[in-house]
């Protein structure tokens, strides 16, 4: 007989073979199929962790990027709270200190320092808040020139929006043109060498401002209330923006020209450097997945081990990069505690009892009699030990911090790199006997457990000029198994805890105006 005949026979017999369906299978399938499918990320904890990390990182970066627009609002907050002449002077003098790399920007800055129209632009841009993007801000002086010349060459403007008379507007245009012509020459020279416009020039220029521009400027300067730091736009400011939109067209266009940031005491970026010291009670979840090990063994092992509260202590340095983004790195020690309890049946215990008696006869002789009795008890034996898993780790984190002077929050994500790990205690071997885990030279557990993913939310309460208290609930997920591959199962720990600590500002300087 050839193999083919045998194969064909088996195939013919079994290809269409049907087995009786057990009861209740359809109900199970119907229930299962109607369940909403769980997404890939939720099935894969590693991908979930990486995804969350990426979201935190990208979100933080994007918010950091948008921070530059918020700074413009901060700059104008100061402008709006002072009188007009001071505002122009202040903006004019502060501008060059921030922008001294680009010739185009310097041109703008020079113009900003001397031009009354630019004072209006700045105020206007403040009112438009984040809606004014960087592209608008970086419009060069040549564009301003073009706009000014366009007005004077008869390019039609939207008259419906004006709130001043045509005569006043014409006068304003003439003055603007005259002023532009004067200052363009001056600014181009200054820009070439990157010089700072002086205040005298600004005041002199101000004296030539016509009443129309002054009234508009005052209207815009005084209408918006001061913006809080990080605040987007108040209702009053929106109203002011509405007023601004009704301005003559030439003023609306001029809002496109340069606006500058108002620098803080230590430059543009927040420069905080902190030392954080913390301690945390930890609750650990153990995950054991069967490889070659039998399910009965895994079940028995699970029943012998109970997780106990562990702890983490550590310190880290926190550094701001940008207004909100923070980087954290440090060193920490953590200990996971576990109670091992093994109950073994049919244990025998033999007890020997020796009874000694003295017997005195009638003659007064004393005889010592010893009875030896032994008895065996059969029962169970409970062996208990406290296991610990200790490790030294390197936390590396990226965070996004927000809040106000009273309370701050920080969303953190990152990795915890294990440097060293050691263990002590007992565990169950595959013959269901207790074996000791040595501190070193033992092949039960690895001595470096690679990387864990970490996510947390810090709640920070400033308590003194340099001190903050913080509470940080966190979760960490281990990416690799902690035991060696020879055991036939994969064990890893995930930890949830609450870090409580103190944060000390190391550089100690006042960070902003």
């Amino acid at each position: 007989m050839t193999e083919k005949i045998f194969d064909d026979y088996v195939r013919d017999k079994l290809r269409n073979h049907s087995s009786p369906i057990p009861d209740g299978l359809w109900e199970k399938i119907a229930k299962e199929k109607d369940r909403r499918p769980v997404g890939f990320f939720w099935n894969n904890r590693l991908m979930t962790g990486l995804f969350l990390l990426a979201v935190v990182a990208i979100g933080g970066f994007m918010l950091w990027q948008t921070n530059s627009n918020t700074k413009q609002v901060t700059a104008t907050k100061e402008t709006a709270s002072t009188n007009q002449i001071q505002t122009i002077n202040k903006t004019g003098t502060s501008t060059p200190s921030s922008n001294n790399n680009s010739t185009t920007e310097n041109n703008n800055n020079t113009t900003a320092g001397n031009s009354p129209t630019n004072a209006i632009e700045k105020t206007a841009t403040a009112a438009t808040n984040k809606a004014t993007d960087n592209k608008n801000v970086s419009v060069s002086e040549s564009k301003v020139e073009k706009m000014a010349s366009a007005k004077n060459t008869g390019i039609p403007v939207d008259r419906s929006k004006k709130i001043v008379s045509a005569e006043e507007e014409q006068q304003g245009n003439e003055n603007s043109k005259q002023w532009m012509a004067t200052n363009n020459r001056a600014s181009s020279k200054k820009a070439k060498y990157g010089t700072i416009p002086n205040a005298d020039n600004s005041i002199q220029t101000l004296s030539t401002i016509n009443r129309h521009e002054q009234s508009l400027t005052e209207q815009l300067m005084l209408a918006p209330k001061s913006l809080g730091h990080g605040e987007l736009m108040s209702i009053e400011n929106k109203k002011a923006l509405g007023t601004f939109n009704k301005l003559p067209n030439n003023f609306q266009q001029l809002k496109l020209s340069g606006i500058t940031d108002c620098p803080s005491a230590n430059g543009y970026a927040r420069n905080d450097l902190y030392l954080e010291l913390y301690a945390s009670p930890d609750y650990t979840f153990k995950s054991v997945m069967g490889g070659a090990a039998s399910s009965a063994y895994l079940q028995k092992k699970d029943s012998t081990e109970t997780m106990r509260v562990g702890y983490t202590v550590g310190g880290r340095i926190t550094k701001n990069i940008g207004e909100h983004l923070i980087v954290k790195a440090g060193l920490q020690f953590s200990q996971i505690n576990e109670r091992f309890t093994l109950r073994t049946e049919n244990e025998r215990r033999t007890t020997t009892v020796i009874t000694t008696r003295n017997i005195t006869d009638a003659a007064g002789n004393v005889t010592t009699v010893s009875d030896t009795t032994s008895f065996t008890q059969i029962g169970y034996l409970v062996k208990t030990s406290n296991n610990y898993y200790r490790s030294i780790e390197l936390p590396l984190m990226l965070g996004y911090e927000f809040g106000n002077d009273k309370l701050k929050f920080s969303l953190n994500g990152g990795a915890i790199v294990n440097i060293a790990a050691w263990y002590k205690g007992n565990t169950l071997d595959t013959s269901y006997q207790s074996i000791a885990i040595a501190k070193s030279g033992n092949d039960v557990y690895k001595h470096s457990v690679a990387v864990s993913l970490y996510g947390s939310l810090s709640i920070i309460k400033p308590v003194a000029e340099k001190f903050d208290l913080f509470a940080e609930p966190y979760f960490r997920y281990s990416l690799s198994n902690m035991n060696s591959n020879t055991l036939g199962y994969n064990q890893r720990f995930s930890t949830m805890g609450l870090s409580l600590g103190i944060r000390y500002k190391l550089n100690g300087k006042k960070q902003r105006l």
Partner: protein
Amino acid sequence: MTEYELIKGCIKQDAKCQRLLFEQMAGKMLSVCLRYANDSMEAEDMLQDGLVRVFNNIHQFKFEGSFEGWVRRVVVNCALKHLQKKRIQFSEIKENSNDGLRMESYAFSNLGEEDLMKLISQLPDGYRIVFNLNIIEGYTHEEIGQMLNIQASTSRSQLVKARKMLQYQILQLQKIAV
């Protein structure tokens, strides 16, 4: 109801059509699962996962080729996925010197399906999977190699040994019967 209407109904999530499809397919597919699984409980789990996947992905069936073949393929893939979790070892098992085994057709002509199923289920995991995939499902050794992440030559040798072991078991069964 034609097969086309049944499939269309299942795509529309019609519970009646799904039930009908289950009744038509479940017996055969359970038999497939029983050949891969170590016990009936595991086979039920495989079948449950397989049919849920069929119902959730039935819209992917392009009406090209046999629908039963498509369902069988999905169920077999599910069964293999189950088995992969157990990390099947394709180890070489020492045989009882049955190299020169010759078996006449009458030796197995009276063998019923249930007996064959039982004998196949007694094969070692690696032998059983390769035997099922190649002889009954019709996959080539290259395809089996890709599916199980093993060499095609490993699949061939596993099949040869599976076949010999099965024939040996059939002969043993005959001896007992005699």
